[in-house]
């Protein structure tokens, strides 16, 4: 599983202040920390960058490239900022992201071709996020076909099925899993990514990690190629590195519907089993899902 570290995000006050003040230090610290923790890519999420898009993106890319050699995932919906960043990346970057929206098809996909980079394509269309597996498939087939026509091969495309929070849309969480399961049959050679932490948006802070980690393992079982995630979560990296085979086995068995005797498990194992049941939709989500 390829981990794209999500910590450099404009929503973070530390990051937005640092960008505003052009103070590279806090951002470089975050980059170094994610690199050390085991991230494979560093995501630079700038949002829409309304002011000085070119200069801002290039400043950020340079600041990060000064301290880490990892490839970057450039995350902005502003095509001007995107191109400015793509131009100066030392390693083959990931364009994050294009989608089935008209603007994106017209402005982002050509950039991916021009700079011959990897590109995230999400299932979002002009009408928003398509609900359910079928609508997502329809959207992605269309956008990927267009990208292929433009000369972007499946191997360079990272499909993002769009993940919704389990606290708000439990049924969609299951649909997303189904989508990932069939993706490689639909589009051979294609890669995938997903905003993993979205799964736990709206969940009490202390409980977010286990949802993120469990869902990563579940996605991984169905061939998920990468996740945009909290690389500073040690247990998440541990799972990615295959250091917790026992937990992975429990998650798989729970996904298969095995009736596991909870009393035979450690508290941590129990939590993973309960969390898997919530993410498969077997048990109704509540903030207290670990307590019952």
């Amino acid at each position, binding site marked *: 599983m390829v981990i794209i570290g999500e910590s450099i995000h404009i929503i973070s006050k530390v990051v937005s202040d640092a960008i505003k003040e052009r103070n590279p230090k806090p951002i470089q610290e975050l980059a170094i920390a994610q690199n050390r923790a085991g991230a494979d890519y560093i995501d630079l999420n700038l949002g829409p960058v309304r002011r000085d898009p070119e200069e801002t993106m290039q400043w950020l890319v340079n600041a990060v490239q000064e301290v880490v050699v990892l490839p970057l995932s450039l995350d902005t919906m502003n095509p001007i900022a995107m191109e400015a960043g793509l131009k100066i990346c030392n390693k083959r970057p990931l364009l994050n992201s294009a989608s089935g929206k008209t603007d994106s098809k017209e402005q982002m996909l050509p950039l991916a071709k021009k700079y011959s980079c990897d590109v995230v394509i999400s299932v979002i269309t002009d009408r928003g996020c398509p609900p359910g597996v079928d609508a997502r498939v329809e959207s992605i087939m269309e956008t990927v076909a267009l990208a292929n026509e433009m000369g972007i091969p499946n191997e360079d495309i990272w499909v993002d099925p769009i993940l919704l929070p389990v*606290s708000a849309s*439990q049924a969609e969480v299951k649909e997303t899993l189904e989508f990932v399961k069939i993706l490689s049959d639909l589009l051979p050679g294609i890669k995938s990514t997903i905003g993993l932490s979205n799964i736990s948006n709206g969940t009490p802070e202390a409980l977010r990690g286990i949802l993120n980690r469990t869902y990563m393992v579940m996605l991984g079982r169905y061939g998920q190629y990468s996740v945009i995630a909290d690389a500073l979560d040690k247990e998440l990296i541990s799972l990615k590195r295959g250091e917790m085979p026992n937990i992975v086995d429990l998650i798989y068995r729970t996904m298969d519907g095995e009736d596991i005797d909870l009393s035979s498990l450690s508290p941590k194992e129990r939590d993973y089993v309960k969390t898997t049941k919530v993410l498969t939709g077997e*048990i*109704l*989500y*509540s*903030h*207290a899902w670990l*307590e*019952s």
Partner: protein
Amino acid sequence: MEYRAPIETYAGKVREVVIGKGSKAMKIGGESILPLHFFEGSIENPPRLVLEVYDMEPDDWAGAVLEPYKDVVSDPVKWAQKCLDFGADLVCLKLMSTDPGGENAPAEAVAALTKKVATTINTPLIVYGSGDETKDIEVLTKVAEVCAGENLLLGPAVKENYEPICKAALDYGHCLIAQTPIDINLEKELNIKLMKSFPPERIVIDPLSSALGYGIEYSFSIMERTKHIGIMFKDATMQMPIIADLGKESWKTKEAKASEKQGILWESIAALTFLLAGANILVLRHPETLKLIKEVITGKI
């Protein structure tokens, strides 16, 4: 070959909650079929129809719904008796005088009144605080204490105040109404928290009941899903009976206030909707609504 419609049987069952004491005790819920699926089995306890009583003269009731009670509105004991005379299965006393935004009546006074109502009528009593999260702690714990052993159905216990109210209900032997704001996940969460110290067979869920035209479909969905999850999917944290406190919401609407007939129909449609969704207790306001719903249930119309 004769066709036989398939009949489902379910693994789950709604818990039977007993409210009231001694010969007055009444069973709520206990069904193991989906609402009105009588082809799948039978229900032991029919939905209970309740009329509402205020502990003060209501200042916000529509004239048409206050009219039937006009001779008793200043005396909650007589009012409660009148509700039973109208044919209600039991009575719901709302302690609206305690609202800090209104009369702000002290807990002691309403607790004594509650006791009087509870011991005078020969049915169990449902008691709601004013809905002020902070004041309700004081009011409901006092009511619980003064009415010890009456086995009231007491609430609402909400996320913000359930701990002391739950403790009082436990200490003094009452059942509890767990109220959440039309949200299935929060409903489950509150149940889980209550169940840590409170017996689940003494909990009734109030998912909030919106009025027709004002989001009734959301309340319907939550009740329907609660039944599905409890009965079909056997989730023990969701197997409580449901109370639909709908009279209040229905009569708040301008449509209900427009005329008596329309008001009764507005309330009745909401009541039928929640019956279809699986509500086990319906709290109504107008005696004509009660009559109409009874006739529908017993197949007279």
